[in-house]
Every structure is written in structure tokens, then in C-alpha cells.
């Protein structure tokens, strides 16, 4: 194990890691400020009960990212007039584009967002020019070695542009990944952004995602998280102008002693905006899953329409799921819906399927796959949907 993994990093060590970062991606002054804020910001996750074993406010890790050869970013897909580049290259060749997008993560507020910014070592930039439609999905693959990595994924869709971006993480055992996704969807643009990851018992992945959607723009966000490690996903989408729409889904299925924590905030900044959030969480073994859902409708956002649906399925008597929805509505003329369920698989459902010839394990698998179906369906390609289904089946086995 690399030195420093067992204890939280000192302030000095964080600063020395920040100062070694690429100044073209982010200035050293900003990096220093960011790592200081990492130390002072709270995670927003107080330990809800004794089951939550990891103290997110005092994580132990090595702040020095692994050497370049350990981490890779690669792209597939036919880009046409769009660009997709490693972040370091983009910082040299597309500094102006980078400057338009690089300040989305509010480091004053976000603990792990600040850490990712302060130590950002590599990543990807996708830029789609105005009115251009990238027909094929752009796939960004991060191969992360057994060390620390701080990847940032930046996507800018100019007015009227359309694209599908898929981010795949292949995290090695022993990895510690703190990243961001920073997405700008300008007016009338449409982005479908999907990401899936699996994190092993000795690994940690923390992701801060921010998106902003302009007038009549739309974004579809889909995530799927699996594994026995720690995954924490903070996601905030801001609907900034009339006609902006969000459809987001989250699938999470921790196993073993895994901890999986998703916090999704939607900010209806402007009126006549719409958001739909669908969350399906299941937990097996001794795993813990937690969903914090927050719909914020600001005072002048009349005519906003928000819905939040979260369902939790407990697959083992030792698993634990928390679901914490919140609606903050500061405006009268809005529609807001929230619905939640939590429970185990219903015996009557199992009997019904068995009475049609399916054996018990097949019945359970069918019901669980059905449970996740809307969140699998939110992924953009048939191949991805098939691989997620396979992963669910393997996890349930």
C-alpha cells in the first residue's frame, strides 16, 4: 500500500499535492484554496446511525495522484465537428472553452468537489458546437490504477447542439477516485449523460456532478453504481431558464459491506421548468444505501413542475437503506410530487410468478430486474442496458 493511505492527509501534504498539479487546468492559487476548503467544508453527511462506519469528514488517502501511466482516458465514437480531448490537452489547446466551464463546482460549499478541483490531475473535455448533432454516443473510459485519481469530466453543449456522452469507470482494486462531472447545456441543446461504475471492497469513489440547463434545453442523467466499496455521488442540476428540463435516474445496488450514498438536488431557478427524478436502490448482504433527494423551487419559479420518485428494495435482513427526500418550495404556483416505497420482495409477487412455472430464484430475479427496469431503461444504448442487466443478475446471484 502506498504511504499515507492509512491516515487522513495533513494540510501540508494536501498543499504540496495541489502545487504539483497542472496550472493550466487550474491555477495553483485556486488549487490551494480548494484543498483548504476541503479541510473546512463538511461532507453534508453526518453519521445517521451506528451502521454508517466510515467517517466521511476524515477520510484516509494519499493526495498524490498516481503517475500518468496508471490512469488513462480514452474516447470512442464518431465526433464530426465536436471535440473530445484529455483535459491536459484541452487546457493547452482550448483554454477559452475550458474557461467557460471550469467554475461550475462551488468549492465554497462542496467538500469533495473542492478536493477534486484542488488535486485535479486529468480528465476529459467534450465540446459540441452550436446547432451540431453528434449522432453517435461519445464514450469516455477512465482506467484507474491502484492509487489516487482526481478525474474531471467537462461537457459543453452550445445552443441547439445534441449529444450522448457515456462515462465508464474501470477502477482497479485499491483505487481512491474523487472526480467531478461539469455539464453545461445551453439553450435548446440536449444532452444524454450516463455513467456506470463498480467499486470493490477496498476502493472508494466520490463524485460531484453539476449541471446547468438553459432556455428550452434538456438533460437526461443516468447513473448506476454497484459494489462492496464506498461510492458517494453528489449531483446538482440547475434549471436556469424557462423551458429547461431534467430527467434523472439513479440505480444503486451495494453488496458485501458496501456503502452507497447518492444525493441529488434539483434547483428550479426559473419558472416553467420541469424535472423528473427516479431512484431505485437495493441493498444486499450487510450493505448500506442512502438517497438524499432535494427539490428546490426558488421564489420566482412559477409554473415549475417537479417529481421525485424513490423506491428501495431490501434484499437481505442485514442490509440497510435510508431514503431522505426533501422539497423546498418557495413559490405558490408549482406542481411538486414525491413518492417513496421501501420494503422487501413481496411474497405474493413471488407466489404469482411461481404459479406460472418460474422457480423461486427466477421469480426473485425477475422481480428485482423489474424493480430496476426504469433506471436501466434510462441508459442510452442497448449494449449498456444489457450489460447493466447482466451486472444486476450477477449481483443477485
Amino acid at each position, binding site marked *: 500500500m502506498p504511504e499515507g493511505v492509512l491516515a487522513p492527509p495533513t494540510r501540508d501534504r494536501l498543499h504540496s499535492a495541489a502545487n504539483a498539479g497542472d496550472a493550466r487546468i487550474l491555477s495553483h492559487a485556486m488549487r490551494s484554496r480548494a484543498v483548504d476548503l476541503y479541510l473546512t467544508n463538511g461532507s453534508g453527511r453526518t453519521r445517521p446511525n451506528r451502521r454508517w462506519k466510515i467517517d466521511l469528514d476524515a477520510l484516509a488517502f494519499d493526495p498524490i495522484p498516481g503517475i500518468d501511466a496508471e490512469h488513462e482516458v480514452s474516447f470512442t465514437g464518431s465526433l464530426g465537428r465536436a471535440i473530445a480531448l484529455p483535459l491536459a490537452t484541452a487546457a493547452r489547446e482550448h483554454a477559452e472553452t475550458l474557461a467557460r466551464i471550469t467554475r461550475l463546482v462551488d468549492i465554497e460549499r462542496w467538500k469533495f468537489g473542492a478536493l477534486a478541483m484542488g488535486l485535479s490531475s486529468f480528465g476529459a473535455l467534450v465540446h459540441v458546437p452550436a446547432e451540431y448533432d453528434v449522432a453517435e454516443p461519445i464514450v469516455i473510459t477512465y482506467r484507474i490504477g491502484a492509487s489516487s485519481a482526481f478525474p474531471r469530466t467537462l461537457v459543453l453543449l452550445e445552443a441547439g447542439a445534441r449529444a450522448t456522452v457515456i462515462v465508464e469507470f474501470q477502477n482497479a482494486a485499491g483505487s481512491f477516485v474523487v472526480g467531478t462531472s461539469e455539464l453545461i447545456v445551453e439553450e435548446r441543446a440536449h444532452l444524454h449523460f450516463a455513467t456506470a461504475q463498480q467499486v470493490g471492497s477496498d476502493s472508494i469513489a466520490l463524485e460531484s456532478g453539476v449541471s446547468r440547463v438553459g432556455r428550452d434545453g434538456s438533460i437526461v442523467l443516468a447513473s448506476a453504481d454497484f459494489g462492496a466499496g464506498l461510492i458517494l455521488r453528489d449531483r446538482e442540476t440547475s434549471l436556469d431558464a424557462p423551458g429547461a428540463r431534467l430527467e434523472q435516474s439513479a440505480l444503486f445496488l451495494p453488496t458485501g459491506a458496501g456503502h452507497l450514498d447518492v444525493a441529488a438536488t434539483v434547483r428550479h431557478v426559473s419558472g416553467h421548468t420541469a424535472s423528473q427524478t427516479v431512484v431505485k436502490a437495493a441493498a444486499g448482504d450487510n450493505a448500506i444505501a442512502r438517497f438524499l433527494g432535494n427539490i428546490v423551487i426558488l421564489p420566482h419559479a412559477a409554473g415549475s413542475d417537479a417529481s421525485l420518485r424513490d423506491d428501495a428494495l431490501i434484499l437481505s435482513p442485514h442490509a440497510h437503506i435510508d431514503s431522505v427526500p426533501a422539497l423546498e418550495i418557495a413559490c405558490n404556483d408549482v406542481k411538486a410530487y414525491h413518492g417513496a416505497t421501501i420494503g422487501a420482495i*413481496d*411474497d*405474493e*409477487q413471488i*407466489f*404469482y*410468478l*411461481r*404459479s*406460472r*412455472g*418460474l*422457480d*423461486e430464484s*427466477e421469480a426473485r430475479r*425477475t*422481480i428485482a*430486474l*423489474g*424493480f*430496476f*427496469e*426504469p433506471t436501466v431503461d434510462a441508459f442510452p444504448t442497448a449494449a449498456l442496458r444489457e450489460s447493466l442487466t447482466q451486472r444486476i443478475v450477477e449481483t443477485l446471484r
Partner: protein
Amino acid sequence: MGLRVAGLRATVENTEILRGIDLVVEPGKIHALMGPNGSGKSTLALSLAGHPHYQVTAGSAMLDGASLLDLTPEKRARAGLFLSFQYPAAIPGVKVANFLHAARQAVRPGSLAPAAFRAMLVEKMEILGMDPSFMGRYLNDGFSGGEKKRLEMLQMAMLAPKYAILDETDSGLDVDALRAVGDSIGALRASEEGRQAGMLIITHYPRILKYVTPDVVHVMMDGRIVLTGAHDLAERIEREGYDGIRDEVGARA
């Protein structure tokens, strides 16, 4: 041959509901099982299908010579037993078409090529007056009462069981849906696979029997079959209700 039930007793949470049921449904015959609420009709249906909440304490149930009571629910289905549920469970996220295919494969493995399966599905749905959009919907999820019962009948048609128990399939249906259920039973019996199907139609009201003519009518009260007769027994129940029969049976006992 036949679905042969003898001396069947069953309890639910230590309360005896079935108190010695004797019944034989021969291949190709339609039996109606009638009786007031709480007489144990649904308990009989669910006990035969193997519902885990029902404990059979005595008696036997044989399907064409094989004992059902030793089998898991899925093996009973594979042996050729079908139960149309009074309250079918909803399973969100599971598309009707996929489910029907999985069930058909489980009950009659490899007997139908995918194209033939689809053709059969379209044909059966037409008989039931079901819109093709049903196929993409989630199993019983958000279905009306009538839609659920039509889907039960569609399953029966697709699985072509040797013996089918219809538990109050007619309850809560309007006339059109009732007719569709009747047509579906008729179509099953007209098909090659279902010609020899035996049926036990459990009902509270005789009205479904306008659309399906039973060969035998049984009346069940307090966990026993108290009277068995021909089709005219159903007409008598329609005229007199169950009270007359209760008085007659009580006087005899």
C-alpha cells in the same frame, strides 16, 4: 385421469377453512364451484396451487395420477395446473410480453418457436379484445380490475393448462369483459392444446354461467361441498340465493 381431490382439509393461521373436500374434474369438463362469501372457495384454489400461507392437513389432490401436494407451486404449474387469481399481483418493470414468454417456456419448454409464439399471442389477444399496447405494459401494474382478469385469461390461453381453476374471474367485470372471458374459455377449448382442459370455475354469482355452460355445479358452504348437481342448480341459486340451499342442507344434516 382428472383433477381428483379427496378428503382435503386445510388451515390458514391455525384456523381450519377446508373441512374435507371431495371433487373430481375430468378432462374436458367444466365444473362450477359456487357458494357464499367465506365458504372456502378461494382457499381451495390457493391450496391446490400451493400458496405457502395455506397448510393442507389431510387428504389428497392428484393431477392425472400425480400427487400435487408434494410439489412446489412451479412444479404444479409445469404439471399442467393453472390458477386464475382473484387478486393478481402487480410486478412493476416486468413487461407482459417478456413475462408471458418466460412463463410459456417454464411450463412448456421449447415447444414454440418465437415467431409462432408471437402469432399465438396476437391471435389470443384478438379473442380477448386486448390492445397490442398491453404487451409493453408492466405486469398488472396500474391495470384496472377488468384488465387484470383479461390478462389472467390471456395467460391461461398461452399456457394451455390441463386443468384451470378460475377464482372469481368474473367478479367486478362488466358485460363486455365477461363475454371476453367466456370467449377465451371457448377458444381454449376449441384449440388443439386446450381441447381436453378441465376447468373449475369458482364464482359467487351465476352470471358468468350465461357465457360458459358448466357440466357440473357444486355448492360449497363452511368448508365442504354440500350439494352437487347439473346446470339447473346454478339457475336455482340465481332464483333463490344460497339461503334455501342452506336450510335444505341444514335440515338434512
